[in-house]
């Protein structure tokens, strides 16, 4: 049996209508029956009293003249009242005087009672009335009245009520089936609409409004709600679509990145903003022979060379903390157990607000390059060593040539003919040039041996030293050398003097007819000073601006311009050793200005070149 609340509204309405109807009618019927029963009792009491009065009055003579037969006759008039079960007349002393009993009446007369009374029992009514004659009580009339009549009336009423209930119930049922449509149909419409909405998820469905009552309002609200849901659904779908598209785009981008990363010869990886590595490309797995699970996050540290590991981690943490790019050379263990040099670069990718979204890193194997570099460096060092030894060892014989050729020229001056003098002159000149060349070569090779950084030097003092070394040449060429106040720079004083000396020497050498005008100045450029050595000489064709710094590069084979072709090479080598550069600006005939830069302070970390050069 279903609970009332679970049955359909249509049935609920029927039940409600029928129940109301039935209860109302039953209550009305009950009220009628009960009130009737009371009214009827009152009526009965009055009626019976009146009847008793008549009978009693008509019985006085019979009693007075002791005629029970007459009294019995009088009583038998009660026959007309079919509900009178029995009636008796008692004499004053209580003796039965006359009696009447309805045919088939079950009981006899009630007992004599001295007092008048009207007593309703459950099934009968007992009435006792004194029979008076001339103010004297001569007897008592007792009537027993059957209340079955009341029950009959009740039965009749009950039946009537039942019939009315049935008939009105039927009528109500027929009426309600028409009336309930007024309520139920809009609800069915609503239910149908909600059902099809929930089944089809089509929020475009609208319930039909059939009335302007609360149900109509409900339908309106429902439709409004549906409209709201529909628009939200649309927005949601759109948002979902956009999101899917964005996801697809992101996936595409990721695919592209993957493809790119997988296709590159380099090892590629990505890391989360906090430094956990979450992607390695295929090259990594092929190289390391390890699965992703073992090297992800910080698992990669297992294949870093133990000697590099500490600094590696230190630098990586520094980058994660500051967001600065990571650049490091270190060795990774290959699957075969061999360590290979790699150059790793990691850069942070940032979003629009500048927050790091990920790190992207590449590891380029530079092992062969590094080996070649080492080889080259060794070869270079060997060469330098050779050049140094050679130059050093050559100095002695050359000096002998020069010394002895001069001795010959002095002592045997008289004995030599003109040709001999000329040839000796060539020899002396050749020896001197060779000596200069050897000196320059020594100077050049010595540059491979650089001193540990010392305190900054005052470049004007260094320039003065250079000028005093060149004093004779300056005097000979009648040149004027001027200079501004010059700064302190961090270069070895001998090196700086060599640069000044070479540049000024060049300016003196490649002069025009007029006396050379040379000016030295310096301006600050960030952390470096840019020196300029300006002359008014013959100038340099633009096409030779680069080549002039090569070893043994001489623009002029002309005897007027003597030189070993090493000076500018030495300058370049010195300047570059200190991280600077050297260049020239000139036009032919317009003079030339040589520029070079020198550091204001020594770099904090040692450069590999410098440290390797020290060995």
């Amino acid at each position, binding site marked *: 049996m279903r609970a009332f609340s679970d049955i359909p509204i249509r049935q609920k309405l029927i039940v409600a209508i029928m129940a109301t109807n039935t209860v109302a009618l039953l209550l009305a019927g009950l009220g009628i029956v009960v009130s009737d029963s009371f009214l009827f009792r009152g009526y009965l009491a009055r009626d019976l009293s009146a009847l008793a009065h008549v009978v009693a009055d008509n019985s006085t*003579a*019979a009693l007075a003249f002791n005629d029970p037969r007459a009294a019995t006759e009088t009583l038998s008039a009660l026959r007309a009242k079919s509900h009178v079960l029995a009636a008796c007349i008692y*004499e004053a*002393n209580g*003796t039965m005087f006359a009696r009447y009993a309805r045919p088939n009446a079950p009981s006899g007369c009630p007992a004599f009672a001295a007092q008048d009374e009207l007593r309703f029992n459950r099934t009968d009514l007992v009435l006792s009335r004194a029979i008076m004659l001339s103010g004297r009580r001569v007897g008592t009339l007792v009537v027993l009245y059957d209340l079955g009549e009341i029950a009959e009336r009740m039965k009749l009423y009950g039946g009537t009520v039942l019939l009315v209930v049935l008939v009105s119930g039927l009528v109500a049922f027929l009426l309600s089936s028409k009336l309930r449509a007024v309520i139920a149909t809009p609800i069915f419409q609503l239910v149908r609409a909600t059902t099809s909405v929930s089944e089809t998820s089509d929020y475009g469905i609208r319930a039909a409004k059939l009335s302007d009552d609360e149900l109509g309002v409900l339908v309106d609200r429902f439709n409004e709600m549906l409209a709201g849901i529909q628009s939200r659904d649309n927005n949601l779908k759109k948002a979902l679509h956009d999101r899917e598209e964005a996801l697809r785009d992101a996936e595409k981008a990721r695919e592209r990145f993957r493809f790119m990363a997988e296709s590159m010869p380099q090892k590629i990886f990505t890391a989360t903003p906090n430094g956990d590595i979450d992607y390695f490309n295929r090259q990594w797995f092929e190289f390391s022979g390890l699965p992703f699970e073992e090297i992800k996050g910080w698992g990669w540290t297992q294949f870093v060379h133990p000697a590099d590991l500490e600094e590696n981690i230190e630098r990586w943490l520094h980058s994660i903390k500051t967001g600065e790019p990571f650049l490091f050379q270190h060795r990774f263990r290959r699957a075969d157990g061999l360590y290979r040099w790699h150059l790793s670069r990691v850069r942070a990718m940032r979003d629009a607000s500048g927050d790091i979204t990920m790190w992207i890193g590449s590891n380029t194997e530079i092992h062969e390059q590094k080996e070649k570099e080492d080889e080259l460096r060794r070869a270079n060092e060997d060469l330098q060593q050779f050049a140094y030894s050679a130059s050093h060892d050559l100095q002695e014989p050359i000096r002998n040539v020069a010394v002895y050729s001069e001795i010959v020229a002095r002592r045997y001056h008289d004995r030599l003919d003109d040709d001999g003098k000329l040839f000796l002159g060539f020899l002396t000149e050749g020896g001197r040039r060779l000596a200069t060349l050897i000196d320059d070569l020594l100077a050049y090779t010595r540059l491979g041996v650089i001193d540990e950084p010392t305190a900054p030097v005052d470049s004007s003092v260094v320039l003065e030293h250079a000028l005093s070394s060149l004093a004779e040449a300056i005097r000979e060429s009648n040149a004027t050398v001027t200079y501004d106040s010059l700064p302190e720079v961090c270069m070895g004083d001998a090196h700086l003097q060599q640069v000044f000396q070479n540049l000024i020497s060049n300016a003196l050498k490649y002069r025009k007819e007029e006396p050379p005008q040379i000016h030295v100045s310096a301006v600050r450029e960030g952390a470096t000073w840019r020196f300029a050595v300006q002359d008014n000489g013959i100038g340099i064709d633009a096409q030779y601006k680069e080549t002039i710094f090569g070893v043994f590069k001489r623009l002029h084979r002309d005897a007027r311009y003597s030189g070993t072709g090493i000076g500018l090479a030495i300058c370049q080598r010195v300047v570059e050793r200190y991280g600077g550069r050297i260049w020239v600006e000139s036009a032919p005939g317009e003079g030339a200005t040589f520029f070079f830069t020198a550091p204001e302070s020594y770099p904090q970390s040692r450069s590999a070149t410098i440290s390797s050069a020290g060995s």
Partner: protein
Amino acid sequence: MKHGLGTFLRKSAISLCLLLCFGKAAAADDSIEYQVKAAFLLNFTKFVEWPADSLGAPGSPITVCILGDDPFGHTLDQIVGGELVNGRKLAVQRIRRTPAPGSCQLLFVSTSEKEIARTLPALGPGVLTVGEGESFLRDGGMIAFTIENRRVRFRINQTAAQRYGLKLSSKLLSLARTVE
């Protein structure tokens, strides 16, 4: 009042006992028969309406006269003693001659009287005449005692009663065996 009610009840009990005890079974016995008849005499006064002028002044008693030999003895006096009918007391007079008009309201004619047929017409109006035997009615009497099945009963000559201006109650008439 308590005293009065007690007296009333006692007397009622006596009269009814007389009626019932003797009226039924002892008609043959003279004394019981006349006790019943005496009670009937009293009761007749309750069912008869006299013409207004025949009763005398209000408060004056209803006089029961016995003409001829008295068959009741003290019984009648006992029965009517203290009775009130329509607010009047009852009085008993024993007479030998035809009473004067207005002196008797009820006249019992004893069987000792021989000239009943002559006596009755001589009575004035307003006298209820009671006698014995059916012949009494033929002689012009109004109510006659009879014995039926050993019980005292009575017959009524209504014509006579009407002639003399007396109204007999229908209840009384209904008890009478014959009504002429």
